[in-house]
């Protein structure tokens, strides 16, 4: 009897709790009520953060093709607040949907917001555990909002086009794909330094790539030091930084040789930095090894003259790295290629010695560059 009662009670309990797990009895959100955010632009003005996000528009699909061109496939929403989190909430409130950052691919930080604090901007993602640590981060030359408003005619959504831009730049050795995790990690180091790609909005009215004649290009990078943007750097500096970071495996150099411009593709680039301490000065020996392939066919046959060409290529690469070091390390005491990690890894005692005044040690550091480039001879044989 008692056993039966228990069974009935257990069944009743099961049904009651089953009901509570059914969607009708539990607060829930349907997919079309969510703002599936693809890209976020963050600006800073009058001590307020302004956020614009692009979110997926479900009505933009369902036509004969995957994307119905008559409908915009992304919508935007704007908001502002004292911090990025508040601005995001405001933008969510305005669009009337619940935000979802699980597939966010891109964060564009406006110039002023980056100058104010990159750390503050990125902090909001820590509250959204669903956000992917792989999302890419760039800095807009002006306002992030304008960069996200460009309506590209290729690609399903403009974030894809932006991703292609960066992927191509990475293949050319100009920038490494700057993901949020790497930025977070860099912001945890002593100098809080990084270099992010810079997006420039071109308004020539002649571009076929977008509906409004506007387009975007990567015009170089922005140096982040002590958690905020301090300077703009050009493509040569960015390329040099990528080599120093050991992030890029490919690149291109063009050298003058016998009245001819010869382009050599660098492959399998490997950079090693070894720290030492001499005469109260931090000394960093940078050794770059790479293979090389001719990208333009030389007029003459330089089979026996590869050594000279290899040296010229090496000098060109060293020049790039020197330029990167001058613009970032010597000028600001910044550490965009994470020397902190290298010093600690190779010589912990040295790190203990320099860590309290690391910025000053970097400003007065000495860099020794060595390059070994081996151009593939097979290309030249007839």
């Amino acid at each position, binding site marked *: 009897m*008692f*056993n039966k009662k*228990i069974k009935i009670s257990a069944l009743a*309990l099961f049904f009651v*709790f089953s009901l*509570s*797990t059914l969607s009708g009895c*539990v*607060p*829930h*959100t349907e997919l079309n009520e969510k703002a599936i955010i693809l890209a976020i632009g963050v600006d800073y003005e009058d001590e307020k953060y302004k956020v614009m996000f692009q979110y997926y528009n479900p009505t933009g699909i369902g036509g004969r093709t995957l994307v119905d061109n008559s409908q915009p496939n992304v919508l935007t929403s704007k908001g502002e607040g004292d911090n990025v989190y508040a601005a995001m909430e405001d933008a969510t409130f305005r669009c009337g949907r619940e935000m979802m950052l699980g597939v966010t691919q891109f964060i564009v930080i406006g110039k002023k917001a980056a100058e104010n604090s990159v750390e503050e901007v990125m902090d909001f993602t*820590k509250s959204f*555990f*669903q956000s*992917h*640590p*792989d999302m890419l981060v760039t800095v807009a030359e002006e306002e992030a909002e304008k960069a996200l408003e460009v309506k590209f005619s290729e690609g399903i959504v403009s974030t894809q086009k932006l991703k292609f831009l960066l992927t191509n730049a990475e293949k050319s050795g100009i920038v490494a794909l700057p993901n949020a*995790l790497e930025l*977070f*990690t860099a912001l*945890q*180091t002593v100098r809080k330094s990084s270099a992010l790609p810079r997006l420039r909005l071109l308004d020539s009215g002649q571009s076929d790539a977008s509906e409004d004649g506007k387009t975007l290009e990567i015009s170089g990078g922005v140096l982040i030091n002590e958690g905020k943007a301090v300077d703009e750097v050009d493509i040569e500096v960015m390329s040099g930084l990528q080599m120093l970071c050991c992030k890029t495996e490919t690149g291109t150099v063009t050298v003058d040789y016998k009245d001819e411009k010869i382009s050599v593709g660098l492959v399998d680039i490997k950079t090693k930095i070894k720290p030492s301490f001499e005469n109260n000065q931090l000394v960093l020996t940078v050794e770059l090894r790479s293979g090389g392939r001719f990208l333009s066919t030389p007029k003459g046959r330089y089979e026996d003259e590869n050594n000279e060409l290899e040296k010229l290529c090496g000098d060109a690469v060293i020049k790039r790295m020197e330029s990167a070091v001058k613009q970032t390390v010597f000028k600001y005491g910044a550490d965009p290629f994470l020397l902190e*990690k*290298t010093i*600690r*890894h190779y010589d*912990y005692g040295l*790190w203990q010695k320099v860590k309290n005044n690391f910025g000053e040690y970097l400003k007065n550091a000495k860099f020794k560059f060595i390059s070994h480039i081996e151009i593939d001879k097979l290309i030249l044989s007839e």
Partner: protein
Amino acid sequence: MQLTSIKKISYIQLAVLFAASRLFSEAMNFPLTTVQYGMQRFTVILTAYAILFVQYIPLICLSVKYPGQSAVGIIIEKNKGLGWIYTVILSVSVLIASISSMCRMKFYASSTIFGQAPEYLLIILPLIACAFAVWKGIQATARSGVIFAAVFVGFLILVSISTWDMFNTKWLYPNLIDRKDAFWGEVAEQVGSNSEIIYFSVLAEHIAEKTQRTVFWYVPAVMLILELMYLLEILLLGPFVESANFPFFTVSALSNIVLFQRLDGIDVAVWTLMCIVKITLAMLCIRTAYDRLIGKKAGLIAALSGLVITGAVSMAFGGSSNFVIAVTAILTCGIPMLTCSVVFPLIALIMGKKGKTGPKTGLKTGIKTGSNKNNKGAEANV
């Protein structure tokens, strides 16, 4: 009413159950204590588990001397008054452990992937599963616990394989103690968080034979897994491990295997299920202890009451991180652990010497051995 009996399990099963319980807590590194970036963590884990092994010695001696019995069983048998004191202290300790675990799980699950789920459901549903597990006994819990632990280790391997190309060995550096002042504090916290030792002082009596071997397997295995988990975190996150609220969740969010773009969702589901194992073990301790004191039915009622208290307290105060910090601090201070698993087992050893103890004496341990027709093989009907 025919109560489900708590049957015997093997020492390996108990070791795996403890490992599942421990790994749940470690994976859900609740942002109450910050994990510091540094090689010191490796030394802390190693030292903490060496100390933990030493703490297990009284229980190991007890298991060797009185096989098939537990500290709580011996004390109750010898001195009921002292048995009551021990049982009450033990109940409070395991209740604190289960409340802390439940609050952690609720916070973790609602912060990560179950953001929309009503919080009461995140508490009630696991507790119903726990109640069923307590009803079914340790054997059923052991079977599910082994599956969860295997899935956990499987996913750990999958995450490692899928993220290996992102490993950066330069985040490692050759200094195993770099914050001497904080070292012993970190060790104490790591040792103090091991509530499994309290469980062992009770659940040892459910082991069929060679009880002491549970410790020989559990301690090194968990130490090794924790070292591997931290190595993975360091290689992928570097100094970001300090500011990531849930470092291991971030690591699993980075993983990208063929079928799943990210493993964090599945991981959270598995870890949530492991919470059920931890709470069930706590309640089985209560069931076993009260069973010895006041009988079978009372034991089950006490365990179910424990679950109700856990649910009620978690719902009422679980939203306050200050409450969870305070509750966890009681555990990590080490007093409950030392009292329940060192002081009382030592008393049990002394008391055991004064008179014969164990199944052969016919004392009320509830353990029936031999080839009794009604009890085939060894079985503890508690």
